[in-house]
C-alpha cells in the first residue's frame, strides 16, 4: 500500500503550485486556475485521509465524509469558477483587460 505521505506530498506540491500561481500571475483567469489547483490539492488530502482513516462507523455503516467533502468541493469549485469567470468577463467588458492590477477603482 502506498504510504500516506506520498499523497500528502502530492497534495502539498499541488497546493504550493496553485498558491504560487495565484500570487504571481496577474491575469485573473490564471489566478482562477491557481485557485482550482489549490482546491484540488485539498481534495487529494481529504480523500487520502479518508482512505487511511476509519471507514466504518461503530454500528457498521460506511463512513463517506471524505468523499462527500471532496464531492462538495468539486461542486463549489465549479460554481466558483462559473461566478469567477462571470466576474472576469464583466471586468473585461469594462476595462478591456483581465489584469487584476488594472482593477483598482476602490484603491485609496
Amino acid at each position: 500500500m502506498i504510504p500516506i505521505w506520498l499523497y500528502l506530498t502530492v497534495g502539498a506540491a499541488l497546493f504550493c503550485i496553485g498558491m504560487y500561481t495565484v500570487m504571481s500571475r496577474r491575469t485573473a483567469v490564471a489566478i482562477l486556475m491557481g485557485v482550482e489547483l489549490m482546491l484540488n490539492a485539498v481534495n487529494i488530502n481529504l480523500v487520502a485521509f479518508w482512505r487511511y482513516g476509519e471507514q466504518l462507523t461503530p454500528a457498521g455503516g460506511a463512513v463517506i465524509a471524505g468523499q462527500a467533502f471532496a464531492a462538495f468541493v468539486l461542486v463549489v469549485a465549479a460554481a466558483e469558477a462559473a461566478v469567477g469567470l462571470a466576474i472576469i468577463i464583466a471586468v473585461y467588458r469594462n476595462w478591456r483587460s483581465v489584469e487584476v492590477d488594472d482593477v483598482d477603482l476602490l484603491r485609496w
Partner: protein
Amino acid sequence: MIDFTDVNILPWLIPVGPLLAFLIIAVVTNRGKATPADQIGSYGHYTPAYGSLQVGVVSDFGRVASIVVGMAGAIWAWVISWYVAFQAMGIYHFGEDTIFANRIDWMATGLTSFRMGVLVDPLTVTMLVMVPLAVTMIFIYSIGYMASDPRQARFFALISLFAGAMLTLVVADNLLLLFVGWEVMGLCSYMLIGFWFEKRSAYNAAMKAFMTTRVADVVMLLGIAYLYFATGTLSFREILYNKEVLDALASTPALIFTGTSAAAIIAIFLIIGTIGKAAQFPLHVWLPDAMEGPTPVSAMIHAAAMVSAGIYAIIRMYPLLEAGGHPHSGEFSAPLLLMAVVGAFTALFAATIAVAQNDVKRVLAYSTISQLGFMMAALGIGAYIAAAFHLITHAFFKALLFMASGSVIHAMEHGEHHAHHAAHDHDDEHGHDHGHETVPAVMYDEHGHPVAEAHDAHDAHGHDDHGHHFDPQDMMNMGGLSKRIPVTWITFLIGGLSLAGFPLITAGFWSKDEILADAWLGTKELFGPHALVFFLLAIAAFLTAFYTARQLCLTFLGEPRTEAAKHAGLGGRRSIVSITMQLPLIILAFFAIFAGFVGVPTDFPILGGIFSPNGIVFKEFVKYSLIAELRADAPPFDWIPVLTSFAVALGGLGLGYLMYGRRPLTAGEPDPLVRILGPMHGILKNKYYFDELYQIVLIKPAQAVSAFVADMIDRGVIDGILHLIGRVSAWIGDLAKTFNLWLIDGVGDGIPMGIARFGGWFRKLQTGRVQNYLLLAALFAIIIGMVFAVSVGAAAN
C-alpha cells in the same frame, strides 16, 4: 376679612390714596409724546439748552388724567382723615382711655416682634384736620399754577407721594414708620425742589436740601436706634404714654456723655433730626434755597408737610424730651434747653434776615424758619399745647401766603409778557379790563383745560431778545398789585395779618399769644430759659409784623413800579388758572382767621367767654395726648403777654406801614431800610453770610477732601489695588493660556493627529493588488498555523 368700617383700621387707608395716586400716575397716566425741546416753552422760566433734542411732554390726556388721579388721592385722604378726626372729636376725653390704633406684626425680632401700626390720638387728630386740607388746597392750586408746565403729570405724581409720606408719618404709631415717611418726604422734597432741574440753581438747591437734611437724619436715626436699644420698642404709646419707661430712661446714664441720661441723649439726637428737617439754626440754609421749586412745592414744604413734620416729630416725642425735667417748675432737661435756645435764637435770627429780603418768596421762607423757631422755643419751655397750636395755625396761614405769593409771581410773569406785547400792539388797551384782554393768552384743549400759555413760550424768547433779566419774584418790581389781583390781595392780607399776629381776629395772634403767655408765666418766676424765649420771641414777633407790613406794602400798595406790575393778572376772572389758583386762597383764608378761635384763653376778657367757656377748646382736646403727670394747666390770664402781643403786632405793622405804606416807594427809589440800617442791611440781605461761611468752612474742605480722596485714595490706592489684581489676574490668565495651549491642546490635538497619521500609514496596506492581500492572508494563515502547531505540540508534551 378686614373691616374697613372700623375706625381703628381706617387710619391705615389715609395715606393709601395719595400713594396709590402716585403709583397710578407714575405707571399709567404719565404718558408723554416726544417733542423737540425748543417747541415746548420753558421749564420754570428756563429754556433748556438742548433745543433740538426730543423730550417727553405729557399729552393733554395724560395731563388731565394725572390731575384727576392726583386729586382723587388727595380727596380720598381728606375724606377719611376728617371722618376719623370727627369720630375722635366726638369721644369724651379722647386719648386718655380710647385711642384709635391698630397694629400688625411687621418683623419678628428673636423672641419678640416689631410691630407696625397706626395710632390716632388727639395730636394726630389735629394734624389730620390740617394736613389733608392743606394738601388738597395745594393740589387744586397746582392745577392752575403748573398748567403750562410740560411735566405737570410728573409733578402730580411726586406731590402725591409727598402727601402720602406726610400722612404716613402722621398716622404712624412708632418712630420707625415715622422715619420712613420722614425720609420719603426728604426724597420728594429733593425731587420737587429740583423739579426744574434744567436750571442750575434749582438742582443745586435740591442737592443742598437733600444733603443738609441727610446730615440731621443720620443723627436722628442714631437716636431711634438708641431708643430701641434702650427700651426694646419704638411704639409711641408704649414709650411716651408710660411713666415707668420714661422714668427708667431718664434715670439710666447714657452710653456716651455719661453725665446725662439716656433720655437726654436720645432726645438730643431726635431734636437734631428736627433741626435739619424744620430748618433751624444752624441747618436752616436749605430752606430759603428750596424756593427754587415750583410755588406749590414751597407751600407743601413750608406749611403742610416737610417742616411741619419736623416739628410734629418733636411735639410727638415731647414726653421723652422732657423726661427728667419739669419745665413748669424751672427744671430743664438738656434737650429742652437746647430747643429753647435754638428755637428762640432761630426765631429772631431768621426774622432779622427776612426784613432785608426783596424776593417775595424768600421773605416767606425766612418767616417760616422764624415761626418754626417759635414752635421749637415753645416746646423748649414746655408749652406743648402752644407749640402744637402754632403748628396748625402756621400751616394754614403759611400755605395761604405761599400760594398767594405764587399767585403774585404768576401775575407778574403774565404782566411781564403783556408788557412786551403792549409795547408792540396793545398800547390802546391799557384802560380796558385786564381779564378781557388776556383771555386769549390761555389756549384750551378739547377738555376745556389750559394746555399752554403763550406767554411762557414768549417769556423764554423774551429774555433772549431783550437781553435783560426780569425777576418776577422781586418785590421791588411790584407795587400796586391790589388793583390787578384783588382776590389775591385780600387773601394775602389775611395771611399776612395772621402771620404778623394781628390782634384778636387772626389765628396767628392766638397761637403766638399762647406761646408768649406760657413764656411769661416762667419769666415771672425768673426762669432763665423762659425769659430768654419771651424776650427773643417778642422781638421776633415785632420783626415779623414789620417785614409782613413791608411785604404787603411793597407788593400791593402804591403805584406799579414796572410795566410788568402794571399789566399783572391771572388771565381772566373765569380762566381755569385764575379759579384754581384763587379758590384755595379763599378757603385757607377762612382757616387763617377762624382756626385761631379754638385757642382763645378761657379768662380772656369777653372773647374767652364766647369761644372757650369750658376751657380752651384746643387745649382740652390735645392735652390727652400726654400722660396725666405732664398735662400742664393753662397759664392764668395775664395782661403783660397779651399787651406784648398787641404791642409787637401793631407796632411792627404800624412801623412797616409808616415806612412803606403811607408813602409807597416809587419806581427806582431805594429801600428806606438801606439808609436806616446802613452796612447792617448788607449783612442781613446776605443772610449773615451763612451760605458763604458754609461754603468756606464746610463745602470747600469737603470738596478738597473729596478731591484728595478721589485722587489719592480712589485713583491711587483703590484703583492701584484693582489694577494690581487685574495685572495678577492677567498674568495668571497668560499662564493658564500657555498651559492650555501646551498640554490640553497638545493632548486634544495629538490624539486625532496620531489617529490620522496612523490611518495615513495604515491605508498603504490597501494597495489594490489582490496578490498583496492574498500574500498577507497566507502569511497570517501560516503564522496562525504555526502558533497552533506549537501550542498543540506544547499541550501534547
